[in-house]
């Protein structure tokens, strides 16, 4: 029993949902299965967005646009051509339970901004564009720039960037949550990188394709390792070494 919960509202439109969000103690519920298990005592109202968000993937020009209501299991089962397989892989790694993947949505996963989510790290590297609807209307913004306000309705990525992307992860077991995730993608601006896992924050960087070697890789490993601490998964020096190995592998793959 969630003792602080007073009401569950089901708005008919995004505008109504935004109106409800102004209420103190209100939180959006849309594939955020963690909300129910955490039972945050500060939450008094849940705004059920299920049914308001699109659940499909569509191609627009050179981009893939994902509805925020798409479940993670849909990403796993989607009939991807080769480049999309990395999304299925990232979704499976992000949440190992199929039951939870049937419930959790891409929007819920992105909105939570977990550093230990392979999907979030990958979308950072892909420089995903978020479509946000707020009180002032709809805007497009990057993952890094989104302040968490408004409702995430779509996530857009470049198809070409997706075709040249790669993921490296380190975990105690293949099915265990990764303590280090390193993603890279090749875009028109050069190589984009993002690291996550059991880290204080994401680390992101972009560099020219030709510059991504030797010293740059050593510098990236050093910089990214600052987001990690010595813990039961290993010392910071060990993680710095793993980062270098991951960047070297990404260089081969990209």
């Amino acid at each position: 029993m969630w003792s602080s919960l007073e009401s569950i509202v089901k708005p008919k439109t995004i505008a109504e949902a935004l109106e409800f969000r102004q209420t103190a103690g209100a939180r959006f519920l849309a594939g955020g299965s963690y909300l129910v298990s955490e039972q945050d005592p500060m939450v008094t109202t849940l705004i059920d967005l299920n049914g308001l968000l699109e659940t499909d993937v569509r191609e627009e020009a050179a981009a893939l646009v994902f509805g925020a209501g798409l479940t993670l299991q849909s990403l796993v089962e989607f009939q991807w051509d080769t480049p999309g397989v990395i999304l299925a892989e990232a979704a499976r790694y992000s949440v190992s339970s199929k039951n939870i993947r049937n419930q959790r949505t891409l929007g819920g996963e992105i909105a939570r901004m977990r550093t230990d989510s392979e999907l979030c790290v990958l979308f950072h590297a892909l420089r995903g564009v978020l479509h946000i609807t707020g009180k002032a209307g709809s805007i497009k913004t990057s993952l890094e720039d989104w302040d968490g306000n408004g409702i995430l309705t779509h996530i857009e990525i470049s198809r070409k960037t997706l075709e040249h992307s790669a993921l490296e992860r380190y975990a105690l077991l293949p099915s265990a949550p990764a303590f280090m995730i390193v993603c890279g993608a090749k875009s028109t601006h050069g190589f984009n990188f993002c690291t996550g896992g059991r880290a204080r924050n994401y680390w992101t960087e972009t560099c020219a394709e030709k510059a991504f070697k030797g010293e740059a890789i050593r510098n990236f490993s050093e910089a990214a390792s600052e987001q990690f601490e010595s813990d039961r998964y290993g010392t910071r020096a060990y993680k710095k070494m793993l980062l270098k190995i991951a960047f070297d592998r990404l260089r081969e793959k990209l």
Partner: protein
Amino acid sequence: MLSVSNTDYFDLELTVNGTPVRRRIPTHLRLLDFLREELGLTGTKEVCGEGECGACTVLLDGLTVDACLIFAVETHGMEITTIEGLSRNGNLTPLQQAFIDHHSVQCGFCIPGMILSGEQMLRDHEQLTREEIRQDLSGNICRCTGYQKIVDAIESVSRDRR
């Protein structure tokens, strides 16, 4: 607009194991509590209560979900299958029989969830490898069997229908 609170009640309509159900329920009732307490379907088990173990697995519109992480009001208009809804006229499904034949049950607490996950994967895939079975069972934890005999049972049903 649907707006309900815990001082009010919600008139829930859904289909459970093929039977239409209407109940007036408190809005913040979890699906798990609704099934167990309101409908008496205690085959759906509660263990962790936070989506880790899968003992409360049910089929919601044909997909496996953890009933402990869903509010009953979210299932309005939907179709739920619990372990009680699988057998017909007292006849076990081939998978239920396979669990018996392969001695896949020890304490039995996880088994309703295991069987429902197995039923979904058998329905969704023509053939299943042991690796695919293990991957799809990733949301169901068993602390007794070591999983081998559970995988054996699901694999046998997949193999027998070739």
